Each structure stands twice: as C-alpha cells, then as structure tokens.
C-alpha cells in the first residue's frame, strides 16, 4: 500500500474512533462518570469496570468517554474561533495593505513571538482557568498563525490575472474577496486546522494536567492523569489509559495531517 493511503487509513480510523467515543460519551456512558463509590475505589480492570476505577471508585471508561466529549468539543470550538478570527484579520490586513497592514502584522508577529502555550497561560490568568477560559485563551493564542497564512495567500493572489479580471468585470472588492480569494485560502487553512486541532487538544490536556484547565470533578484526559499521579504505583491503569487516549488521538491527527498535506499542499506533491 502507498504510504499516504496508509496514513489516511490509520489516521482516519483513529480520529473516527475518537469522534464515536466522544459522541457516545456526550450522550451515554456505562456508569455515571461523577458517581463516587468508595467500596470500589482503585479496583483493577474487570468485567464490571473494563478499565478499572479511580481513587474515588469512579468508572475509568465512563470518565474517558466523557473526557473525550469535553476535549473534542473544546478543541473544535477553539480551532473554529482561531480560524474565523484569523481569517478575518488576515483578509482585512492583506486587503488594505499600507501602514494599517504593517501595524496589524507587527502585533501579530509579536504574539507569534510567544510560544503558543505560554501565551495561553498568560491569557488564562486574565480570563480565568475554566472550560470557557481555555477556549478563549487557546483561541486567541492560535489566531496569529491563521492570520499570517491567510494574509500571505491574499497578498500572493491579489496581483494574479484572475483577480484583476474579476475587478475589470466590475465586481466589488468584497465580492472578489469572498468569491475568488477566500476559496483559495481553504487548502492551506485545512492543512493548518488539522494540525491545530492536535496542538489545541494537547494544549488543553497539558493545561488540565497543570490544574489550569477544566476543573475537577468534570473529567478530562489531562486532569485524570494529574489525579492519577499519586496512585500510579498501586493502580497502574489510572496512569496508562488516559495517556494512551491522548497519544492515539495525537497519532491519528499527525497521520491524518500528513495525508491532508500530501493531498492539498502542492509544494509537497511528488515528495513521496
């Protein structure tokens, strides 16, 4: 089998599995993910609790499914936020050019001078460490990279013949933007959004692991690992399964990202 097809298959399978788990977890879980049961605490995986229970006797599988729903939802909203605002800023900046463009891009680049997770940490201090705070903080932190790519595409396109042709035909600038420039941004945006979903999911898990994300008792993979840390010596499964979920998801995203890039990025075509 050719490698891109293999990547797409495995990556697609992993992400498909994630989406099914998240979708199911949002509606139904085998047990109530928040229900305490001290008689069953730190129970090893068994027929009743497939992946065991945690230090409060909560079912690990149910918590992983509920956590998948939370993480996928947060990541999708964050990526949507960054793509929408980044696209608007990039289109505007590339369209107006001149000093406005230079000022916007100077600030954009200064924000890019912060490592993404650092900017998110700083923003979390402002907006507060909770579910919506994370979406806002990560959304803002990842907007500059979208803006940069869209602006670059706009600048490279606006001197092309087909854009000039659209103007000559009497189309308004706004129509030209929406009808001819924006569709050409979709390919690079898809490549970026795919890998960004992975970054955001990792960032969300990291922040939850640090205690700055979704506050307990609501489960996320990150805060499950943080909670498991004192018990991994006696209950290994607590430290294994949430991390395995994060890793398989990121693996799926990376493989899928490679496949998407192979397909959409003309520069990479023929590399394999």
């Amino acid at each position, binding site marked *: 089998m050719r490698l891109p097809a293999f990547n797409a298959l495995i990556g697609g399978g992993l992400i498909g599995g994630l989406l099914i788990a998240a979708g199911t977890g949002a509606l139904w879980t085998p047990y109530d993910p928040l229900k305490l049961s001290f008689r069953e605490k730190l129970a090893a995986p068994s027929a009743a609790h497939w992946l065991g229970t945690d230090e409060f006797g909560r079912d690990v599988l149910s918590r992983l499914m509920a956590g998948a729903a939370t993480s996928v939802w947060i990541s999708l909203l964050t990526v949507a936020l960054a793509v929408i605002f980044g696209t608007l800023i990039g289109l505007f900046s590339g369209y107006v050019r001149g000093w406005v463009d230079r000022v916007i891009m100077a600030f954009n680049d200064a924000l890019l001078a912060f490592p993404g997770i650092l900017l998110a940490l700083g923003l979390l201090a402002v907006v507060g460490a909770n579910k919506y705070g994370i979406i806002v903080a990560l959304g803002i932190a990842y907007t500059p990279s979208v803006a940069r790519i869209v602006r670059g595409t706009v600048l490279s396109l606006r001197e092309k013949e087909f854009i000039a042709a659209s103007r000559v035909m009497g189309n308004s600038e706004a129509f030209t933007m929406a009808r001819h420039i924006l569709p050409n941004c979709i390919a690079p945006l898809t490549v970026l959004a795919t890998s960004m979903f992975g970054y955001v999911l990792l960032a969300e*898990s990291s922040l939850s692991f640090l205690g700055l994300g979704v506050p307990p008792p609501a489960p996320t993979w990150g805060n499950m690992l943080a909670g498991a840390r004192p018990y991994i010596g006696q209950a290994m499964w607590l430290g294994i399964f949430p*991390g395995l979920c994060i890793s398989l998801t990121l693996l799926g995203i990376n493989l899928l990202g490679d496949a998407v890039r192979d397909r959409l990025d003309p520069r990479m075509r023929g590399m394999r």
Partner: protein
Amino acid sequence: MLRFALTRIVMAIPTLLIVAVSVFVLIRLIPGDPASLMLGDLATPASIADLRARLGLDQSLPTQFGIWFSHLLKGDLGISINSQEPILPLILSRFWVSAQIVLVAVFFASLVAVPAGVIAAWRQDTTLDLGLVGAATLLLSIPTFWLGLLLLLFFGLKLEWLPVVGYVSIGDDPWRGIIYLIMPILTLFLHEIGVILRMARASTLEVLRLDYITHARAKGLSEGAVLWRHAFKNAFGPTWTLIGLVLGNLLGGIAVVETVFTIPGLGRLLVDSIFARDYPVIQGCMLFVAFCYVLVNLVIDLCYPIFDPRVTAQ
C-alpha cells in the same frame, strides 16, 4: 556578514518592544486591583490607597508603562507579592534549572535525530525509512507529561533504578544532581527526536531531488560524499531553524514535565504564580520566556551563515 548580523539584531528590537507592551497590557487586564490583592485581608481603604501610590497604580496607564519600562531596562522586574523577593534573581535561578534540562535534551536529540532523518530520506520508502518515520511519528504523538509518567512508573517504581521525584542542584552535589535530571531529560529527548527527525528527513528529501545532486552522483562521488557534503549541508537550514523554535517552545511548555518530576523550574514558577495571582511574577516570567524565544531565534539566525553562506548575500 557584519551588515547581515546588524540588520537582524536591529530587526529584533521592535519585536521585543511590542512583546513588552503586550505583556504589560495583558497583565493589566487581569481582573481585580493588585494593591488590594497584595494586602489581602488586612487591607483598609487608606493602606490600599497608600500602596497604590507607592506602586504607581494611581498614575495613568502610559505613565505606569513608562515607569515599568525604565525599571525593566535596568533589569528590575519588581517584587513578588507572595515572597517579597525581587523577581529577576528568582526567575534566573529557576531558569537555570529548566535550561539545563532543555538544552541537554535538545542537544542529544539533534545529535541522534538529524543523521537519522538524513539517512531515512536517503533510503526513502525502504523498510528503514518507514521504521524511522513511524517511530518518530509515534514519539512525537506521546505528550511529554505521559511519557514522563511512564518513565517514572518503569524506571522509578518498577525497576527502582532512579529516584521518583525531586531535584538536587548539580552545584550542591554533582552526582545526585545528574541522577535526578536523567528522567526529565530523557522525556524531552525522546519527544524531540520525533519532531527533529521528521523535519531533517523532509528537508533532505527536498534537496535530494535537485539537479546538483544528480550532477554530484554523475561525476562519480561516493554516496557518502553526496549525502553529507552536498545534500546535508543544504538541507540543514530548516532543521536548524526548527531547533530554535523547539528550544523556545520547550521553555514555554516545560511546566508539565516539571510537574511530573516536581522540579522547581521556570515553568512551575509561572504556573504557581498563576494559581497565587502573583501578577508581577506572571508578568516577569512571560516577558523572560518571550525574550528568550526571540533571542534564541536571533542567535539561530546569526549562526545560519556558518553552514549556508547564501543567506548573507540576500
């Protein structure tokens, strides 16, 4: 060469300035009055007003920025609300802890991953290539905090070879200091191998398709000479740039690894300050890491001509 260096250095100044402004504005957006926060439960309206005056909080925002910025230029980042310590020495001592982990890990990761990536590209689509890329993608997909937990579980708790948590300064006790750093360094080392290998492979692939490589082969050079003297030298640029980004990103994201191994580094300082709402320290940490990020990338840029003289000509 000198002109190239000067241009790059001058170009970094506006970025640093805007970084400083952004951090200042960001911290001022935190809800709540710093003075009443600093005084806590003992605050009276009079003491709050007094402290606000001492901190300059009763001035206009631009004036506040001016005062803060002039202190910043003198290396004065203010005083921590919680510990009442000056912030810069605090950050520097924590930074040293994080920096030794990050630098050692990235150095060894590059040493392994760059040649491995070049060889994978050279043997493209063979079992060796697929194995290396597969392993790299797998390593890159494992978050550092879980990789750290797994290492801790295996080497610390099962085999009992290495201490589970804690930190001893290398200055105090070199041998024990190194023992405590092995697992955090190994964690970042394994993760970054994945990142760097893929980049080294991709940029080598791009170069191997060029005509001058065919020419080098046609004139009868050995594969080794083609690969290392011609392909590698030209392919290293993007990887070198990536290494700079990796260093900066690690410094920003090292808090999770420091949390796993309870290491008192810069990342932990930032996270603890966010919990404690110690806003001068948050401000100082963010500024410090962002400055490091810009400076590392500047140094990377300045070193670029050493192996690729073409950039100075542009």
